[in-house]
């Protein structure tokens, strides 16, 4: 991986140049309704960005899988129905200040969106976007990225990773898109900068690691063979089935497809975020519901993230950002729950379930 040094002024001038060229630039900014919160937003000036203060309250997912988006327009005419396609190509955009767990979430969803059938709406935005993640140093007790195989210094899903050093950043250029972004910017990094950056990364990791031990590979197999374990009955007792966890999650990608009238003969087909935690998610038209209770729906959430997706794609569908725990009105805490389940999985076989 190549690297460069970029001073604070050079970063500001890079962002300024992009904005001047009408490139959409997205960065963490203070939320309008709550200045203690950050959210990813398109910015108008380099000064709008607020880097390294805290985890933005929602993930980057909405820029690639919007909460609601039009899949097609239809129009009824005398002759039949006309369909107008939506464009899948979008203008280039650059995201600065992504947290590594959010960039990694996009890489995980890529695998689903490319599973046999390629979702061009997703990939149109993915390909048009250059993602610059910053080393995370705003972790709290709910973060557990190191337990899911990532870390505050992870470059998974990022085109470049910026690590703060004196007067600026050490920029690791992860992909050709990252290299292209900094082609005319930055200077050669010194050995001191490299050493400092490595120390920061080690220190950042050490802050998250105590929160939850690395999830063992065998956990996925244990989950698959303990679908009927009694623990599922009690785990979800505090879950309201509201789906806040899924909305905040960088990897939850379930969606609904619905039609909406605009007028009597015109309308759109939309894709909307959905969540496996809601009661109607799987209900059949006969009224039969394969996941009739909240314990079954919560089991699906855990199984999907830690067993089903891993069995298909070889990694965990969770980046350890902890937003689901912070946002849960019932106080469900994913790292504690996963920790409890891992402990069950590692208990003696006779105590481990069926």
């Amino acid at each position, binding site marked *: 991986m190549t690297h460069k040094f970029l001073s604070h002024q050079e970063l500001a001038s890079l962002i300024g140049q992009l904005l001047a060229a009408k490139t959409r630039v997205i960065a963490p900014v203070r939320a309008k309704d709550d200045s203690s919160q950050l959210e990813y937003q398109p910015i108008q000036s380099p000064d709008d960005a607020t880097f390294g203060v805290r985890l933005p309250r929602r993930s980057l997912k909405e820029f690639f899988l919007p909460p609601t988006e039009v899949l097609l327009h239809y129009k009824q005419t005398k002759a039949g129905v006309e369909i107008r396609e939506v464009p899948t190509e979008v203008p280039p955009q650059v995201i600065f200040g992504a947290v590594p767990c959010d960039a990694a979430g996009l890489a995980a969803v890529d695998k689903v969106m490319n599973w046999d059938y390629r979702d061009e709406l997703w990939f149109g935005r993915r390909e048009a976007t250059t993602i610059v993640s910053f080393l995370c140093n705003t972790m709290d007790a709910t973060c557990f990225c190191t337990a899911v195989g990532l870390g505050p210094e992870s470059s998974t899903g990022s085109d470049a990773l910026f690590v703060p050093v004196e007067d600026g950043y050490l920029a690791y250029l992860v992909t050709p898109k990252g290299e292209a972004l900094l082609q005319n910017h930055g200077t050669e990094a010194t050995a001191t900068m490299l050493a400092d950056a490595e120390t920061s990364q080690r220190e950042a990791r050490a802050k998250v690691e105590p929160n939850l031990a690395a999830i063992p590979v065998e956990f996925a197999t244990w989950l698959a063979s303990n679908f009927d374990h009694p623990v599922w009955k009690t785990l979800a007792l505090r879950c309201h089935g509201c789906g806040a966890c899924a909305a905040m999650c960088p990897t939850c*990608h*379930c969606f*609904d*497809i619905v*039609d909406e009238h605009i007028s009597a003969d015109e309308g759109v087909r939309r894709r909307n975020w*959905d969540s496996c935690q809601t009661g109607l998610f*799987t209900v*059949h038209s006969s009224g039969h519901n394969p996941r009739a209770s909240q314990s079954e729906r919560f089991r699906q959430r855990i199984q999907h993230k830690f*067993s*089903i997706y891993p069995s298909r794609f070889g990694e965990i569908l969770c980046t350890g950002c902890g937003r689901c725990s912070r946002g849960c009105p019932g106080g469900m805490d994913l790292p504690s729950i996963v920790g409890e389940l891992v402990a069950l999985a590692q208990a003696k076989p006779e105590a481990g379930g069926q």
Partner: protein
Amino acid sequence: MNIYQPHLMRIREITDETIDTRTLKLEFEDPGVAEHFQFSAGQFGEYSVFGEGESTFCIASPPTRAGYIECSFKATGKVTQALRRLDVGDTVGFRGPYGNHFPLEKMKGHSIVFIAGGIGLAPVRAVIWNVLDLRDQFKDLTIVYGARSVGDLVYKRELEQWAQRSDVKLCLAVDPGGQTPDWKGLVARIPTAVEQTVATAEDTFAVICGPPIMIKFTLPVLEKLGFPGERIYTTLENRMKCGLGKCGRCNIGPTYVCKDGPVFTAAQMRNLPQEF
């Protein structure tokens, strides 16, 4: 064209099967799409009424009849009720074919027992006509079909055609109380009808579709007859939106009905988490 964009199809024919079940015969508007469209018996699609949404059904016609597809549905929800309001000449959307299919190649040279209950005959009918169109490549064919009442039997004109063929053994049954004075078939539930009709599992595959309760009580009968779970095929249906493995709705544990199914063997079903 993005993967969620449907092909446009015209309704060419409407057949009312029962008081609430209807079959639509559909043709692609675009002759280029029609020419290249291929599917196998058991595959499904997403059918849409513009302004109402999409709904998932199997393709109920056999791939041996080119130029059109058929779907049969019961008006139960928003989309199916809207489909019912459409007329001949109206346009619907279709995405597909999706999913796996019944292994016709494997069944060639063997006998097949088809078992269906109610509207569960729709996917089985696609296989039956497929096999009948290639009749000399299969051995004995037996069809056991039943519904709650005589009025609930679907594809009645085809039941008559099958009854008249000497190369098909057909057994029709209705639940006790569902018979009419002139009913000539059995008055029995499907498991009993299978017990009375199917003599042997030797060299035979079973294809079974119907309500979960029917399948639950028929599988032991088939096993008693000697059918191994690997030779009993059925379809699972779960609520779906995309049909492409992305919307996250139809999975039963690690198994995605839209991609790994909808056709499964009884042996595979036994290994699934019991969440369907």
